[in-house]
């Protein structure tokens, strides 16, 4: 058992870290937020890196790497709070791969994975319209409604910009009943989308924690660094517990997606439930460490807090996932418990004791 990233995975992480530090540092993020746009050059770079199809099989034009690699990249996008359509594009590709017909896949998946076309995905809300990140300018939309999904072309729908809590990404309402269903296993796709979101949330939380820790080391009050007060240092320790929990859960879910899909349903829900809470809680806690300065627009922290608030609500919420986890642990009526018949391969959650 090796829970560490492989040398190749570490190289991908470093490449993503370097790429984003160069192309999307926090001054660049701020510029895009002020302009309400994305940096086209950044997106070109993303495509050139092959990240648009990192976890998509080579047969469908992707890089043929796994969800661990995708999680590694997405965590860095969260760490950088990079304004980019990558997440929504990734969600569309994943849903197409897992739920699309062969025709849909051959028409769209390869193009999206290769970066020739751009996809966007989101979920349908109460009024029947969908909330979709980066819908405008996308070539194809995937709209999820419960366990169903349909593929919609931009021309078939009305796409309206909406003001969202998160200024680092662009959100849209997509209205219209058109489109064709994805016939396959939407849930399998959604679980993998949650892995990507959990990874981004982990990166967001990691950065917010680092900001708090660095500030606590230098900010002096009453003659000593505030990080020497347990009110602050224990707060930071709590952040660490949360961040590591989100990361462990995300990596495990990513690994399950790659190597042991029988564990994915539970693992993805654990990851999203944990990461959604972690993202906001750590960012909010970091703000408390910063005091007033963290409440200013000039400080970068709020971008992370707002991104966390949005990511937590894209696709499944923490409470939906907790409910699902409760089912996995025995609160569903008996028929739904079939998954337990699986023999755990490695790090499986325990079956009931046999003695």
């Amino acid at each position, binding site marked *: *058992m*090796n*829970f*560490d990233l*492989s040398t190749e*995975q570490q190289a991908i992480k470093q490449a993503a870290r370097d790429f984003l530090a160069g192309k999307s540092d926090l001054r660049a993020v701020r510029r895009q937020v002020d302009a309400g746009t994305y940096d086209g050059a950044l997106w070109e770079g993303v495509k050139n890196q092959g990240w648009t199809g990192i976890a998509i099989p080579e047969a469908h034009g992707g890089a043929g790497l796994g969800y*661990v690699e995708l999680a590694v990249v997405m965590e860095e996008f969260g760490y950088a709070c990079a304004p980019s359509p990558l997440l929504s594009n990734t969600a569309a590709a994943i849903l197409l791969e897992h739920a699309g017909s062969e025709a849909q896949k051959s028409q769209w998946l390869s193009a999206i994975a290769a970066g020739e076309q751009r996809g966007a995905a989101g979920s349908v809300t109460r009024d029947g319209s969908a909330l979709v990140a980066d819908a405008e300018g996308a070539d194809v939309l995937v709209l999820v409604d419960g366990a169903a999904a349909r593929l919609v072309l931009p021309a078939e729908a009305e796409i309206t910009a909406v003001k969202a809590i998160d200024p680092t990404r662009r959100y849209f309402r997509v209205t219209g009943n058109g489109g064709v269903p994805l016939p396959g296993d939407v849930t399998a796709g959604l679980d993998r989308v949650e892995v990507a979101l959990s990874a981004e949330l982990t990166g967001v939380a990691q950065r917010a924690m680092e900001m708090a*820790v660095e500030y606590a*080391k230098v900010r002096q009050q009453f003659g000593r*660094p505030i*990080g*020497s007060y*347990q009110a*602050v*240092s*224990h707060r*930071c*320790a*709590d952040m*660490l*517990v949360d961040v*590591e*929990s*989100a990361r*462990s*859960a995300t*990596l*495990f879910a990513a*690994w399950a997606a790659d*190597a*042991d899909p029988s564990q994915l349903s*539970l693992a993805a*829900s*654990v990851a999203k*439930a*944990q990461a959604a809470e972690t993202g906001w809680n750590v960012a909010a806690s970091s703000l408390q460490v910063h005091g007033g300065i963290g409440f200013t627009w000039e400080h970068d922290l709020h971008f992370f807090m707002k991104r966390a608030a949005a990511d937590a609500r894209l696709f499944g919420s923490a*409470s939906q*996932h*907790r*409910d*699902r*986890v*409760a*089912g*996995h*642990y*025995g*609160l*569903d*009526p008996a028929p739904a418990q079939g998954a337990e018949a699986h023999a755990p*391969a*490695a*790090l499986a*959650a*325990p*079956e*009931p*004791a*046999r*003695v």
Partner: protein
Amino acid sequence: MDLTLTPEEEQFRAELRTWLEQNHPGPEPDGAEEAFQFRRAWQHRMQQDRYAGLTWPREYGGRGATLMQSAIFNEEMVRAKVPSPANILGLVMGGPVVIAHGTPEQKERFLEPILSADEIWCQGFSEPDAGSDLASLKTRAVKVDGGWKINGQKVWTSFAHHAKWCMLLARTDPEAKKHDGITYFLMDMEQAGVQAKPLRQLTDESEFNEVFIDDAFVPDENVIGNPGQGWSVAITTLALERAGLSLGSAVAIQIQLRELAAMIRDLGKDRDPAVRQKFGELCVKAETMRLNGARGLSYVIKSGMPGPEGSITKIQWASVNQAMTEFAVQVRGTEGLLDDTPWSYRMLRARANSIEGGTSEIQKNILAERVLALPRLR
């Protein structure tokens, strides 16, 4: 990253499962003394097939198991609901400390009776005035002819009434800096100067003892390491003790979560969204603790040394076990005040989780100072 087990590890688990099924000692008898003798017999059975002293080198009678095998072993022991072996502290702390720091004569003298449970070991570290601040311990050892004369008091000592040997920290140099004047002794519990008195817990059990030491004697040959180096000897053992424990603890919690789910179904509350939210949250916390434990284990396997990150799962374990047991009592409504299920006992016992083995506050200090490099308070 690869979370599959090697074929050897899979085989180890499979053999262990079979062995546990065939050799399960059955339910533990009532009564403290009966339970202890039962565990002594169980350890003897384990030793016969080299499952006692699992990670000890084979030359000392162990199995030479890897850390991964050890973690698998802990998990399977929990899953099979077999008791701990009688001499658990000798196996996980005493033997390893003798193997790491002992002389050839000490190894010859002490190791075999640990494995066989013929000699039970206990630990004399904590004192009434030295809890979180362990290094402020006051028990004194004064050099006398051929050995040391010990005076002082220890507390939270498990198995003291059964123990032959006590791993004892005492101050040998009151002039030295706090951590430097401490020596690690193996003290014979069977002497007039040593009195063990059971410490009644709020759960009405007595897992622990106070040990009163009044002119006890320890011969020179029972000092581990050099005089004055006891602190570092103890620290390495404490760290090793913790590595690989968190996986087993998480599995124990997850098994209790399954029990709790059954109780919730019996109460007809399994479709109550409020109950499902709280229960699901507990499951998430237990599972992230397990995965943090696995990641930590993976790190230790690679680096050879447990790091301060182990404090993460220690904090989580206390927190989730307290929350789970409180919720289990709460979900019963008025009947939660009854002591007719294991849950009220567990809820009370869980309060100690954030104290025993280093308080949650100390764990957070460790994370803040040693992982996050925040400035020290002291």
